[in-house]
């Protein structure tokens, strides 16, 4: 109700504001009528012209001659405008009459006309009466802006789609030779290759490939720039960003050993280390330079153990990384991959998130469709990495270290959530007790009731006994 009242008040305020525009007209009509009363003899003539704009009345007070009333500017009044032309034309119309008559009265006509001039305020013609397109310039600007936005949307969408198609055409052969199923959107009943990209958005395209040794599947996501959004285009002029190709290979459990490893640009690694659950837990050191292995300075390495780095950085991999360093954003192999850290409000989640063995690659793309061939070697690197991950196995020491690390992480996690888990267990026990009690109450047969109660009592006694035994044992051990 209050909102309704405030709306009424607001509407009234605006209504009165709009009415105020007409005040000027009313004032002038009042003043005209006031002047007319001075010359009340001529009221009849006055009434006819009250509806028109104020006129200058020149009255001769010569008793001998007939009194004539000149209503000047009557012809011009049909337009209803208060323009300067009125005052000029009023003066010229006095010429057809005898100048002699008005010799003594030059002042009076002047004063009477000046009296009539006072209330006339020269007002600019309001815009809506001008009837020209120029007054709507803001609207035209707005519509032009909208048209520009729509044009940019269409152009951006087309460019993104052309880039995606070019990428797919260059990589299709390689993918089809490596995977049985190339392209699947999950909706078909049978697993047949659709052979085309899955358009998720105007700037994101997906491709799912599956059916190969070592890996469960590979999801390729082409994340283009938002060329369809004009705001984004303008923002990108400030800071340059490039298209990205994100590849996620899910490995079979038996085909990858347990390690966490990442290579990439320093900036990307720092960001990943903060964001990714597994990197932050297992690779606690800062990204190290890869110069030892012959990598360019732009790339850095994050690794769980030195042995993993040694194993991963063989000649072929180093060759790939050095030659295409400008295209590589990050390469991340992990058996504990669970995605980015999840921020939960109620504290830690009660159990560790599911982990999958994955290889992740992020590459920077090209802006022209014809340059897509340059990305083909990167896909070769991906395939090579898949095979390599299958072949690479940690030696005994490495395996021990890795297992220790994982146990440590799990322990830490359990400690953190200990309190929560205790509470959860407590509440579960209470629920059970309550459910049992309810069952006992609901039993109509008194016999059964008694028996159930006795059973519950016996169980509780047993528990107490067990606890006492435990305490005794601990005491004996302590001694």
């Amino acid at each position: 109700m209050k909102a309704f009242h405030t709306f009424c008040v607001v509407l009234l305020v605006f209504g009165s504001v709009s009415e105020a525009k007409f005040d000027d007209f009313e004032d002038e009509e009042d003043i005209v009528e006031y002047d007319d009363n001075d010359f009340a003899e001529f009221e009849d003539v006055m009434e006819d012209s009250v509806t028109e704009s104020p006129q200058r009345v020149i009255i001769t007070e010569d008793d001998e001659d007939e009194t004539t009333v000149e209503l000047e500017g009557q012809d011009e009044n049909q337009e209803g405008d208060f323009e300067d032309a009125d005052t000029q034309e009023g003066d010229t119309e006095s010429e057809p009459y005898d100048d002699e008559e008005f010799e003594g009265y030059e002042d009076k006509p002047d004063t009477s006309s000046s009296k009539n001039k006072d209330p006339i305020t020269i007002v600019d013609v309001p815009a809506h009466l001008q009837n020209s397109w120029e007054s709507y310039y803001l609207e035209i600007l707005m519509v032009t802006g909208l048209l520009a936005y729509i044009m940019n949307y269409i152009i951006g969408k087309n460019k993104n789609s052309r880039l995606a198609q070019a990428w797919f055409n260059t990589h299709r052969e390689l993918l089809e030779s490596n995977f049985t199923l190339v392209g699947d959107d999950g909706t078909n009943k049978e697993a047949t290759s659709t052979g085309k990209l899955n358009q998720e958005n105007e700037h994101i395209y997906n491709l799912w490939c599956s059916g190969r040794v070592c890996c469960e599947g590979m999801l390729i996501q082409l994340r283009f720039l938002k060329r369809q959004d004009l705001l984004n285009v303008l923002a990108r002029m400030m800071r340059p960003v490039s298209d990205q190709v994100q590849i996620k290979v899910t490995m079979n459990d038996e085909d990858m050993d347990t390690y966490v490893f990442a290579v990439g640009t320093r900036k990307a690694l720092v960001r990943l280390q903060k964001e990714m659950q597994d990197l932050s837990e297992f690779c606690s050191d800062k990204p190290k330079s890869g110069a030892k292995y012959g990598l360019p300075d732009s790339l850095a390495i994050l690794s769980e153990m030195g042995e993993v780095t040694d194993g991963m950085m063989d000649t072929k991999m180093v060759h790939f990384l050095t030659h295409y360093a400008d295209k590589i954003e990050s390469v991340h192999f992990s058996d504990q991959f669970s995605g980015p850290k999840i921020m939960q409000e109620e504290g830690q989640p009660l159990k560790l998130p599911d982990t999958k063995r994955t290889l992740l690659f992020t590459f920077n793309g090209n802006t022209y469709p014809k340059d897509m061939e340059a990305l083909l070697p990167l896909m070769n690197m991906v395939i090579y990495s898949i095979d390599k991950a299958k072949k690479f196995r940690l030696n005994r020491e490495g395996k021990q270290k890795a297992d220790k690390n994982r146990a440590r992480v799990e322990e830490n996690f359990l400690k953190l959530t200990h309190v929560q888990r205790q509470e959860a267990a407590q509440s579960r026990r209470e629920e059970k007790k309550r459910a049992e009690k309810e069952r006992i109450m609901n039993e109509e047969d008194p016999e059964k009731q008694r028996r159930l109660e006795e059973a519950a009592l016996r169980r509780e006694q047993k528990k107490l006994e067990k606890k006492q035994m435990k305490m005794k044992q601990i005491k004996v051990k302590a001694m």
Partner: protein
Amino acid sequence: MSTNNMSDPRRPNKVLRYKPPPSECNPALDDPTPDYMNLLGMIFSMCGLMLKLKWCAWVAVYCSFISFANSRSSEDTKQMMSSFILTPLSCLRLSISAVVMSYLQNPQPMTPPW
């Protein structure tokens, strides 16, 4: 075993279907632009309609266009996304009706808010 290396690595019996990643948290994690623009568009169009401010209605149209261009999924049939898709289109309708109503009630050209 050597033939396996030479022959293709494809394994038709090991094909897994594509499962769209669970999007309980993804829409919120990605880019909140379409949601913000949607909300802004709604607010501006209500302002424009109630207070009869033309520039509000125009800004609302722009917001709904931006929200539409940035919208996350292009599939209308996806069940999960239907609630996210309907709102950008409804925002567009609302903002266009705000502009049209403002001009019907008051055909004067727009005065800039400054």
